[in-house]
């Protein structure tokens, strides 16, 4: 028997490309761009969900990785734009406008940052962990503001969207396809991860670290690896987000950004594979619909968040599919 959650997941999954294709047919490129934005923000949420949902690590600093991914794109593309090499000694490194290369750099840079931040933050738990991850995020935010070489407070504009072999990425539907395929691939891997030996041990460490220690596994190491994977995925999302806007600025590092990524996860359902997809879709929908009514639409978002936290702990997925079924 197929579980209800699986059906809902497939429906959600089909909804994004369906929206994009209908928009294409109706000649509404803006809607396609919105769908692309949902896919990319959902990807950032899928990243956070590895740490938050599976590992129980409440990170309020994931904008750090989102921003690092964004700046990886911005820095590489701006050097390619100006034909000035990134570095000449000891090895020549030039800028690039190739998306796959940029993604790789974004993933590696954010994974390294997550390793350093995680190694320190994971020595604490609870509210201290939240505060330390927040502090790291803010450090990077102010660093980006005070770094004039790459636009400082004003950010960096990239005039031409980076390229993907064989595609015209400036065509909205083609760029949507790129973002959606990346999201699908990461969702597939995140789904496997949750059921793999690592996922079993990580989620057990969230439920009861003492139990995990007693069977001879170290929760700290499990959490650190989870944090690195989580940061890498959110970093990849950052690179795509920068490409969507063709613009990077320090706001990608801001704690509001961390909060928004967390809101996607909470609205959709913490620890549910498709939670961030549902959350990001709802967020963008509300921003678009309520944002048209009032500039202060966040009031309604706050109310909704309150309702979800008070009455629907499993978020929208939980509301639609019921409590998560222990699967074996």
């Amino acid at each position, binding site marked *: 028997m197929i579980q209800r959650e699986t059906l809902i997941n497939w429906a959600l999954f089909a909804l994004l490309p369906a929206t994009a294709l209908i928009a294409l047919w109706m000649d509404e490129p803006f809607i396609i761009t919105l769908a692309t934005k949902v896919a990319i923000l959902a990807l950032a949420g899928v990243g956070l969900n590895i740490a938050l949902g599976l590992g129980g690590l409440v990170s309020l600093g994931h904008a750090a990785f989102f921003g690092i991914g964004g700046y990886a794109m911005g820095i590489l593309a701006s050097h390619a734009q100006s034909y000035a090499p990134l570095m000449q000694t000891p090895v020549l490194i030039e800028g690039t406008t190739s998306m796959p290369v940029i993604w790789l750099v974004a993933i590696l840079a954010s994974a390294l940052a997550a390793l350093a931040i995680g190694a320190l933050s994971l020595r604490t738990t609870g509210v201290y962990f939240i505060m330390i991850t927040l502090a790291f995020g803010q450090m990077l935010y102010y660093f980006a503001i005070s770094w004039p070489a790459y636009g400082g407070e004003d950010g960096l504009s990239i005039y031409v969207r980076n390229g993907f072999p064989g595609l015209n990425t400036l065509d909205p539907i083609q760029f949507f396809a790129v973002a959606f395929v990346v999201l699908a691939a990461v969702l597939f891997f995140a789904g496997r991860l949750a*059921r793999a030996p690592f996922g079993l041990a990580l*989620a057990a460490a969230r*439920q*009861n670290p003492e139990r995990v220690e007693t*069977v*001879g*596994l170290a929760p700290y190491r499990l959490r650190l690896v989870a944090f690195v994977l989580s940061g890498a995925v959110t970093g990849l999302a950052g690179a795509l987000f920068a490409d969507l806007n063709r613009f990077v600025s320090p706001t990608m590092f801001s704690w509001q950004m961390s909060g928004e990524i967390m809101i996607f996860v909470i609205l959709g359902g913490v620890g549910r594979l498709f939670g961030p997809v549902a959350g990001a879709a709802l967020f963008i929908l509300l921003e678009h619909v309520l944002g048209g009514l009032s500039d202060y639409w966040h009031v309604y978002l706050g109310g909704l968040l309150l309702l979800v936290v008070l009455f629907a702990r499993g978020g929208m997925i939980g509301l639609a599919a019921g409590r998560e079924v222990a699967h*074996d």
Partner: protein
Amino acid sequence: MTEPLLQIKHLRKAFGALVATDDVSLTLYPGEIHALIGPNGAGKSTLIKQIAGNLAPDAGEVWFEGRDVTPLSTVERARAGLGRTFQISSLAMDYTVLQNAVLGALGRRGTVWRFFRPVMRDADLRARAEAALHRVGLMDHAHKRTADLSHGQRRLLEVAVALTLNPHVFLMDEPMAGLGASGSKRLTGFLDDLRHEAPILLVEHDMDAVFALADRISVLVYGRIIATGTAEEIRADPLVREAYLGAEDAA
């Protein structure tokens, strides 16, 4: 006589003025059940925590299989072969019974860095987990959520997870608590056989079980071991009668 598998040497732990473990030494030999009894607040749990590595002693050493494991963490001691069960069930409550057992088998295997293949389809881990559940009689409940188990069933799952680890020594903190008469009797029979696989340091309040099972009994009162001996010796010991058993007679 053979070497002890587990040897506690002059362990001491104080919380401020309260000395919870006062110069405790004890040994556990292959094939035996060594029971640790004592009134509430005698420091049994504090002692178990120091042996398992959750709590660092102020002084003294814990030797396991001929080496000093005092500086080792809980994780390292578990890996070395110390199989522990908790007084208050400490399980992953959202998991099924089988998942908890598979977690133990995974810990025993030690390679957790597998990110792709579903763990519950790993035939080897599953077989080990199911064998352990079968031995404690929980196989019928394998797919139940652990949080939905009765208190007694959780105690059995604790034991099953310890079994999946194939430990060299069992450290059991009140495994009978909350089992009820028939369950307690069944587990007593089970532990009786288990001692031949690995010796058991057994903290237990159930005196019927203790006197039926233990090769040796140590009595802990106010952090000190006041007597160690066979069941007969302990029954006859005047100090024990006064400090512990006597109190029960009076009550």
